[in-house]
């Protein structure tokens, strides 16, 4: 099936991924140090970057 004929993506897909990633980021640093902290930092940096990206790509 071609991409154009596929059903439109639900608007809740992005929020669901973001919520799941946030939970992973929150729990990760709680489970341990080292790599667990890094996973948490990367996820939350990604979330902040999403907001910055939306601002940079804003349409006028």
């Amino acid at each position, binding site marked *: 099936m071609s991409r154009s004929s596929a059903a439109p993506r*639900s*608007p809740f897909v992005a929020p669901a991924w*973001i*919520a799941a990633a946030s939970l992973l980021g*929150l729990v990760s640093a*709680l489970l341990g140090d080292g790599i667990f902290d890094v996973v948490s930092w990367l996820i*939350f940096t990604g*979330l*902040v970057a999403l907001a910055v990206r939306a601002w940079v790509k804003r349409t006028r």
Partner: protein
Amino acid sequence: MQRSTLNAWFLMHKWTSLVCTVFLLLLCLTGLPLVFGEEIAHLAEPHVDAPATDAAARDLDTQVRTALAQYPGNVPLFVGWDPDAPTVYVNTGARADTPPPQMQTALLHAISGEVLPAAQFNEGVMYFLYRLHTDLFLGLPGMLFMGVMGLLFAVAIISGLVLYGPFMRKQPFGTLRTGRSRRLAWLDLHNVLGVVTLGWALVVGITGAINTVAKPLEQAWQGEQLGEFAARYAGQPRPTTLASLQAAVDTARAAEPGMRPAFVSFPGTGYSGNHHYGVFMQGNSALTERLYRPVLIDAQTGALTAQPQLPLYMSVLLLSQPLHFGDYGKLPLKVLWALLDLLTIGVLISGLYLWFKRGSTAQRVTELERAARTGAPE
């Protein structure tokens, strides 16, 4: 989604947000410096060099005597250790049940016993912000009120997510249209920031609400679990001559060899009944250092009485604290916590703007329906 359903979700989002927004703004603004509370507190303390590895810690009973000499007439309440510095703090007060705002604290070098100059935890700007953040200076009623605001915030987030669906059905995630109308730009900004902070804000809001019932939960734990051990001492007055604190801590260390003491409560402080030292042990991992294991030591004989397991509700409470404070992933996580806090302030301010520029509820629901059909709300 039917118009009546949309209308109900819209009203829920509008009113839950409106009621809590001012308090949420207060919480976000006061929370910003509190995220870095530990770092700010350390700025006011002298730098203490790490001791030689073979240096023996000063006897705790001597430490307590030194602290009491600073505050004549006081009694010891709590003794605790800083995990990041070789220091010991001793909270003292006029009575065993002195509440935190009236406590006086001495900070001592763990090895030399030198009294270190340090600000009191219950004075200054940070304490003012802390009280504003937690209870609006109203004690338990203020705390519970803030808890209700936290729950309303959670409902506002969920209802906002439901409304996000129709708005964004025809738009890719992250759409921010700033060139058409000011209201549309703010609406898009509200949606983008709201979704980016969705999971984080929901967890921080709910764990904040859980933290507001800390006092009732602690009292329930005291009554249920510690009351069982206290019953053995029914009718006996609180001991006036206490067994060695150092020996009590040594006994607790021997009883929980894989753990280290975080703090000790003295009898009568509300944490270990009237007849026990409560030596609260913590693990060494990020998770287990939050889940205290109390070891009750008879304050008269120095004998080990019990090592009760924390009930589930106390574990939930203790785990909800780091998830609210963001103090468990070192400085980078704190910085990110502050950034997400700032983004949440953006959500709140954009929401307020949208409310000031509101039309009727019917207009807004029509806007939602149009956005779902065409992708453009106006």
